[in-house]
């Protein structure tokens, strides 16, 4: 039955299509409301879900913290600490007493002055959980306020990393919060976001998992000096910052290309060539220090890897190029590194490289057999949903199978890996032998700050390495008084760590950042925590 389409039916359809077309055509005129204020829209590697930088080691919490809070010291792009909230400071000749005086004009966002009471309470709270702080406080006798602006720290030994620790970056940064917030236990989350930093959080507009909004702090008094890393002048040059969380990596890239966001902290590496081809987009390295390094963590508690010679055999399973090619691809953004300290930094030492770089899976298996391996299954926690850890784990599994090792790959999501790796039970009872993870380049700038290097047995990071000599050497590093002295100790640490094998590195890489060069300028390339002050925007 062929009939003519009824005119009313046809008219309805045509009208609908015309309406849609008109809507689309008018789209461009109404996308961006006119506004006099400058708004920086940035998409970071994660969304802000917790507001307390002392409560969690999540990097994004640190980025949030550095926007709204301030620190006593800040490290420059070479990792050297400089006063930030501190105006003047002095150190006694014997290195035991430090005196700090706060700068003038420091105020919290609620208008209250920043006092030494706030500082001391914040440092104590921070010291409850942060490992670098705890290492420092272990040698602290007293921390007292002289008056509202001056306080002293008295040590029982000349601890050499006081300023580095007070200016540490990465995770659990030593931000200064109000005394009323800081008196809360560090195991409870501070839910307010009142700091003294260059930006103020607009908590009413916070939608976790979607957007976090900050406004310029009009009362912020920046320090003088050229900005470098987290030191120097922190000037809030945009009126508003919106951290827009976009889950999909392709959509993030498209949003940057379309100009709907101004900055993309960590574009997928395979999209970088597309971004580099756009004349309006600049792709840059984030600081002089590589942003990430990879680690194969070994469980020291259970056989067969409770023996150092068994762990040392694993060196021959790792060809760092394989991992870096798989994860990063572009050699411009990665480098091999056989130091337990981030390569390209002051205390880097690649002693033992010839052993670590000797990729020979068969040799690994022979060494394991010689050490008593009886082909029992080796449980490897292989995350299935992480963009770098998942492929890295597959590279490791491949090498282990090539060696002939009996591998039991436990394929679970990253959340389950995080849960299971804390389990001290035998691998076959819910524990593990090996898992793969990554860490920030700033967490291993020196052996005292590198928590993965710690060998404090039950108190160590998961894997629980236990070695008194390594810990003694880490302590020596902290008390060394000169860079040369520390370098010598760092070399000894490298040698000892080679024997103990707290972990095996599979190289380091830089996650580039991309931004709209036609709209924004003034980015300070920093490794570890992206900084958003000093950025200017022209619409």
């Amino acid at each position, binding site marked *: 039955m062929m009939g003519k389409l009824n005119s009313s039916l046809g008219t309805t359809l045509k009208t609908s299509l015309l309406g849609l077309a008109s809507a689309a055509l008018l789209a461009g005129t109404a996308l961006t409301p006119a506004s006099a204020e400058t708004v920086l829209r940035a998409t970071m590697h994660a969304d802000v879900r917790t507001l307390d930088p002392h409560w969690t080691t999540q990097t994004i919490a640190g980025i949030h913290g550095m926007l709204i809070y301030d620190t006593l010291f800040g490290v420059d792009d070479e990792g050297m600490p400089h006063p930030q909230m501190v105006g003047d400071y002095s150190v006694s000749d014997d290195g035991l007493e430090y005196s700090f005086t706060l700068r003038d004009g420091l105020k919290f966002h609620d208008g209250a002055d920043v006092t030494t009471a706030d500082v001391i309470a914040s440092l104590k709270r921070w010291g409850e959980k942060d490992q670098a702080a705890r290492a420092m406080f272990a040698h602290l006798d007293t921390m007292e306020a002289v008056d509202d602006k001056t306080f002293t720290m008295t040590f029982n030994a000349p601890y050499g990393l006081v300023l580095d620790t007070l200016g540490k970056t990465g995770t659990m940064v030593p931000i200064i919060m109000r005394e009323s917030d800081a008196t809360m236990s560090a195991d409870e989350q501070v839910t307010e976001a009142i700091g003294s930093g260059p930006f103020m959080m607009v908590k009413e507009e916070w939608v976790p998992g979607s957007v976090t909004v900050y406004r310029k702090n009009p009362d912020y008094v920046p320090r003088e000096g050229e900005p470098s890393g987290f030191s120097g002048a922190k000037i809030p040059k945009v009126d508003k910052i919106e951290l827009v969380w976009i889950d999909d990596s392709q*959509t993030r890239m498209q949003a940057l290309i*379309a100009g*709907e966001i101004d900055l993309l902290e960590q574009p997928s590496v395979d999209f970088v060539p597309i971004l580099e081809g756009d004349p309006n987009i600049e792709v840059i390295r984030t600081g002089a220090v590589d942003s990430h390094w990879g680690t194969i963590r070994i469980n020291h508690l259970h056989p067969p890897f409770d023996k150092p010679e068994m762990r040392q055999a694993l060196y021959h399973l790792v060809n760092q190029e394989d991992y870096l090619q798989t994860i990063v691809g572009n050699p411009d953004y990665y480098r091999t590194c056989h130091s337990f300290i981030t390569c390209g930094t002051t205390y880097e030492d690649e002693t033992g490289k010839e052993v670590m770089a000797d990729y020979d899976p068969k040799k690994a298996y022979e060494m394991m057999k010689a050490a008593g391996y009886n082909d029992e299954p080796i449980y490897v926690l292989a995350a299935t949903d992480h963009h770098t850890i998942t492929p890295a784990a597959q590279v490791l599994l491949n090498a282990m199978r090539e060696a002939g090792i009996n591998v039991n790959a436990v394929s679970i999501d990253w959340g389950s890996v995080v849960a299971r790796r804390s389990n001290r039970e035998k691998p076959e009872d819910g524990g593990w032998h090996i898992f793969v993870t990554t860490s920030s380049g700033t967490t291993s700038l020196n052996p005292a700050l590198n928590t993965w290097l710690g060998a404090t047995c039950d108190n160590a990071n998961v894997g629980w390495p236990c070695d008194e000599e390594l810990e003694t050497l880490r302590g020596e590093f902290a008390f060394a008084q000169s860079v040369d002295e520390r370098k010598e100790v760092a070399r000894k640490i490298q040698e000892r760590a080679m024997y103990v094998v707290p972990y095996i590195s599979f190289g380091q890489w830089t996650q580039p950042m991309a931004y709209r060069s036609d709209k924004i300028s003034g980015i300070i390339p920093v490794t570890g925590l992206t900084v958003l002050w000093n950025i200017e925007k022209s619409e």
Partner: protein
Amino acid sequence: MTAYIARRLLATIPVMAVVAIFVFLLLRLAPGDPAALIAGDDATSAQIANIRAQLGLDLPIWQQFFMWAGGILQGDLGTSIFSNLPVTTLIAQRLEPTLMLMVATLIVAISFAIPLGVIAAWQARTFVDRFVMLLSVLGFAIPVFLAGYVLIYVFSIQLRWLPVQGYRPLSQGLWPSIQSLILPAVALGTTYIALIARITRASMLEVLSQDYIRTANAKGLATSRVLLLHALKNASIPIVTVIGIGIALLISGVVITETVFNIPGLGRLTVDAVLKRDYPIVQGLILVFAATKVIINLLIDLSYAFLDPRIRH
């Protein structure tokens, strides 16, 4: 009718209780530890244990359940482990985008699917019918994310007609809000167009073979009148059922579309909460979804009485 509604609503109570127990136990039994995820990669085991204790996750499961259930009875769905915001607040933040996307998708789907289904049935076993069915197959076959990426590339990147991502709330104006929903609604709507068109066609074919349709044609009524007033109305019950199922699915959020277009809806909230083991959010959301589906099913059943006078509750 009132008694029927009351009976159906009362029946939801045991349903909700079973859902609550099931989702609570399922989350606790699944692997993963929210305390470890909160603490981060550089935390020690002791720090993780402290957080677990702080969150009450080290209490016996039965105690955790009764504390949560007690809160539910007072209208408190709990507090997010990560953000410390009430679950009700988080759901409220995500409700508008989800509802708007749902409405937009249904408008797109119904506007295209029903006419296509009617035309296919009217032109059964002709080229037009086969073409419509081919479109239907394509609608099922093309993944939503692929449709989304293609639409973004064409309309946002190349033509710059529509935004790549994001949702603009109604408070910023109706038109900006609609603009932000056009592409996601079209991408998501293709599947629903395919489904509703097929159901419409099948239902219409059955009705068009009835005697009263033959009588209407014999009386000389216009084709459109026969199709729309006589056939479509009598074919509407299965169509309404499928639309109702679609509404229920859309309210619980369509994660892929929300992810591709960065719509901060309930679907993404659910998946994020599951991956982060934010138990209170998952528990609260599942209860809300279960209640919503029950109510939608009730409304669909009630609508039958309006569409077909022979049906009485």
